[in-house]
Every structure is written in C-alpha cells, then in structure tokens.
C-alpha cells in the first residue's frame, strides 16, 4: 500500500468513527444513560461491540502466528477467551446487573460493604485499563508511522482524541455504536483478503502435482497456472503477464509456498542475526530446508547470519530462482531493502549436480 491512499483512509476511518459516535448521542443525560446506555443495547449490538474489542491484530495475527510456530495447541487461547466470557457472565456480569450497580467498584462496595474494597477494585480497574491502553496507543503510533512516516506520537494522539471525544460526549451508547461499527469494519478488512487468498490457493492447486514431482528448484520457469480460470472475472487479471500486479505476486507467493512444504509444516528455528532490525529463521521439513530473512526496518539493512552448520550449501532465492554464493565457514552477509525479505531454499550442491546429470 502506498501512502497516497493511507492518509485519506486513516482520515476516513477517524471521521466515520466520530460520525457513528455522534449518531449515538442522546440529549437527555442521566447516570444510567452514561454508564449502561439506559439498558437499551440489544444482545446483537452488544455482541458486535465486544467482538470488536477482541478482534484485534493481537488476537487475529497473534493466534495465527502462534499456531504457525507451536501447532494447534495454541487454539486454547481463543477457547480461553470464550470460556472466560462465560465465567464472566455467570459470576460477574449477571450479579452486577441484578444488583443495579454501574461499575465494578460500585458492585464491590455494595456487595461487601467496604470502602477499602471499593478503592482496591478502582485501583485494579485503572491498572488494567492502563496496561491495556499503553500497547494500544503504542500500536496506533507505530502503525501510522510505518504506513505514512508520520511522527510516532501522532497515531496515539489521534486515537486518544477520537476515543475521548466519543466517550465524553456520548457515553456508553455512543461507544457501543463505535465498537460495533469497528467490528464490522475490521471483520471486512480481514475477510476480504482471506477470501481472496483462499480462492487463489484453490485456483493454483491444479498444476501443483506436476511441479512437485519435477525439480523443486525450477520455479522460475513455472508459468501462469489455472488460477486465472477461477479468477477470470476479476478486473486485474489482464495484468497477469506483467508480473507486477498484486494478483500475480500473490499467486507466485502461493505457488512457492506450495512447492516448499517446509513453509506450512516445517520446524521453526530462529537464527542469530547481527542486526536487530532483521529477523531470520529456518524451517525444515524432511529434506526441504527454507531460510527466511525479513527486514522490519523502513531502510535498507545489512545482516550477518551464522550459517556454518550448512557449509557448502547454496541458498537459492525462491521468487527468482537465482543461486546465491555458497555458504562458507564465515558469517553469511546479506543486504535487504527497506521492508524487504528473502526466501531461500538451502540446496545441497551434490544433490543438485546429481539432478542435473
């Protein structure tokens, strides 16, 4: 995404959020209005708002990453959130609602008749809120800085202003509308690319068999597959020959990932990188050995990797099929463009000669 679209997109979301918040404004203002929207929020709207809270980069990408690294056992995390909500309903939400209290400190005081407990509960609420807000604001600043090159604090400032204005003006009703709106926005933003990837993955499955049986290294010659049959109606298919379109690029990535099962199934070993902005890891599955190097910085970065365990092998860059110099005893030097990455397959020289003959 280039930054020509980013600034208007961020502005659009901020304005839409403020607008949705204003839609929830009610003129009559009571305590009940402010804290619980006078109990007018239905279950569907409330469910969307709570899901909007939990459908974050941490829960979506984080769990995908954990499952990738450590297997399906990590699916316990979302189960834990959900079961946690059930326990919350049983022992906190329902009794709190029945008691007529608006906040947890209110409830604690009403139930235990102690001012000290009230203060303690208040301190916990503020502490949890603090711990929750800090990474959120940091993430907002980081995202905006990466996307547009804005100063780090700007993203946090925009989020703080929009949210505080919405809450202060509209109370619980406005913020429920805002969260429900964000839920549907985020869900769409995640589902559309996911659907696109699934379609492209399905579409490229057909010529996979023949490629896998052949030499896994001749990926450079692999021409356009049957993917366009499925995606024929899509407008940008016309560009597919050029190799620069998003469709072509995505299909190419999927092809490569399918030819190297180590991407999906392999073990994961992180490598020591001399540069903290560069993350390098190895994935190994049977005889398939893939080295991924990622530059997380906006600027070009060099790194030295200790690959002496693979002395004598040649890294083959998977997108272009270019053979890099052989690995030796010395640290392997790589330079990466800003936000650049390499996918290498580490091939044994002997087996390559064997296949060529």
């Amino acid at each position, binding site marked *: 995404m280039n930054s020509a679209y980013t600034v208007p997109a961020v502005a659009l979301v901020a304005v839409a959020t403020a607008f949705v918040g204003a839609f929830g404004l009610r003129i009559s203002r009571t305590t009940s209005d402010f804290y619980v929207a006078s109990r007018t929020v239905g279950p569907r709207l409330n469910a969307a708002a709570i899901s909007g809270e939990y459908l974050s980069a941490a829960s979506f990408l984080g769990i995908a990453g954990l499952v990738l690294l450590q297997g*399906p056992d990590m699916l316990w995390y979302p189960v834990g959130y959900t079961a946690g*909500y059930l326990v919350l*309903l049983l022992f906190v939400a329902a009794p709190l609602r029945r008691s007529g209290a608006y906040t947890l400190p209110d409830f604690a005081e009403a139930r235990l008749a102690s001012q000290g407990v009230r203060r303690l509960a208040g301190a916990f609420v503020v502490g949890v809120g603090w711990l929750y807000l800090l990474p959120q604001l940091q993430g907002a600043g980081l995202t905006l800085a990466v996307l547009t090159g804005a100063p780090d604090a700007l993203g946090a400032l925009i989020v703080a202003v929009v949210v505080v204005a919405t809450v202060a003006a509209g109370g619980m009703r406005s913020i429920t509308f805002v969260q429900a709106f964000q839920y549907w926005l985020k869900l769409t933003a995640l589902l559309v690319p996911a659907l696109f990837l699934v379609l492209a993955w399905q579409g490229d499955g057909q010529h996979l068999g023949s490629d896998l049986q052949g030499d896994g290294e001749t990926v450079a010659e692999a021409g356009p597959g049957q993917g366009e049959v499925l995606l024929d109606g899509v407008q940008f298919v016309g560009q597919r020959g050029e190799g620069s379109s998003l469709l072509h690029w995505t299909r190419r990535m999927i092809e490569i990932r399918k030819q190297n099962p180590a991407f999906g199934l392999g073990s994961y070993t992180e490598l020591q990188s001399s540069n903290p902005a560069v993350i390098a890891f190895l994935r190994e599955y049977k005889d398939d050995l893939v080295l991924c190097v990622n530059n997380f910085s906006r600027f070009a970065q060099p790194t030295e990797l200790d690959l002496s365990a693979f002395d004598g092998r040649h890294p083959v860059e998977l997108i272009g099929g270019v053979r890099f110099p052989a690995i030796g005893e010395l640290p392997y030097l790589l330079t990466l463009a800003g936000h650049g990455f390499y996918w290498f397959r580490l091939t044994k020289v002997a087996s390559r000669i064997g296949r060529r003959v």
Partner: protein
Amino acid sequence: MPQDPTERRVVVTGPPRRARRVPGQARPRTEIAEQTTLGHTYVRSLIRSQLRAALTVFAVLVLLVGPLPLVFAAAPQARRLTWVVLGFCLYGPLVLLARWYVRRAERNERDFVRLVEDR
C-alpha cells in the same frame, strides 16, 4: 380494610393476575421492603437459586473442557482432533451453556416476581 367488600369479591372470582394491589394483601412485598426475617428468606432463596444456576453451568463447563487435554494426549490423530475440537466444535456448546444460564436466571426472576405478587 379500607376497600368496600364488592370490589374484593371481583378479585376473588377473576383470575388473580393484576388487580392485586390491595394494601396489606401483597404480604411478601412488604416483608421484603421492611427487611423482616421472612422477607430476608425470600430474597435469599432468589440469590441461592441464581447462584445454583451459575455453579451448575460452571460445573458443566469444567467437565466439558477439563478432560480435553487428556483426550488429545490419548487420541492417535491428535493434531487433527485438536484443530476440529478447539477450532470449531467447542464454541457451540459454550454458546448453548450461556443461553441456558440466561434463560434459567430470567425464569428464576419471573418465579420470584410471581411468588411476591401472588401470595
């Protein structure tokens, strides 16, 4: 009794639904409002029944989720089973449990209201 007897007769012959606002007649209500021992017992019974519903659902949840790690450890195709159960199958029962609890709690409240209004 400040009310005249004709009005009271209407109440007796009709189904005892709404016209029960005769003072001195809604005894449990005043018992609760005045916080007598009997009123306290009424409220306690409601709180108890709500707590019982919550504990029942919690017990079912523990029995449902607790043995799963053992099942995964024992199953031959553990990875696949983990995906199917944790990724998809477990959420339905959790939603059903929550729904059962909410209905149960609302019924407890309705029963209590009926008890208070009808006696």
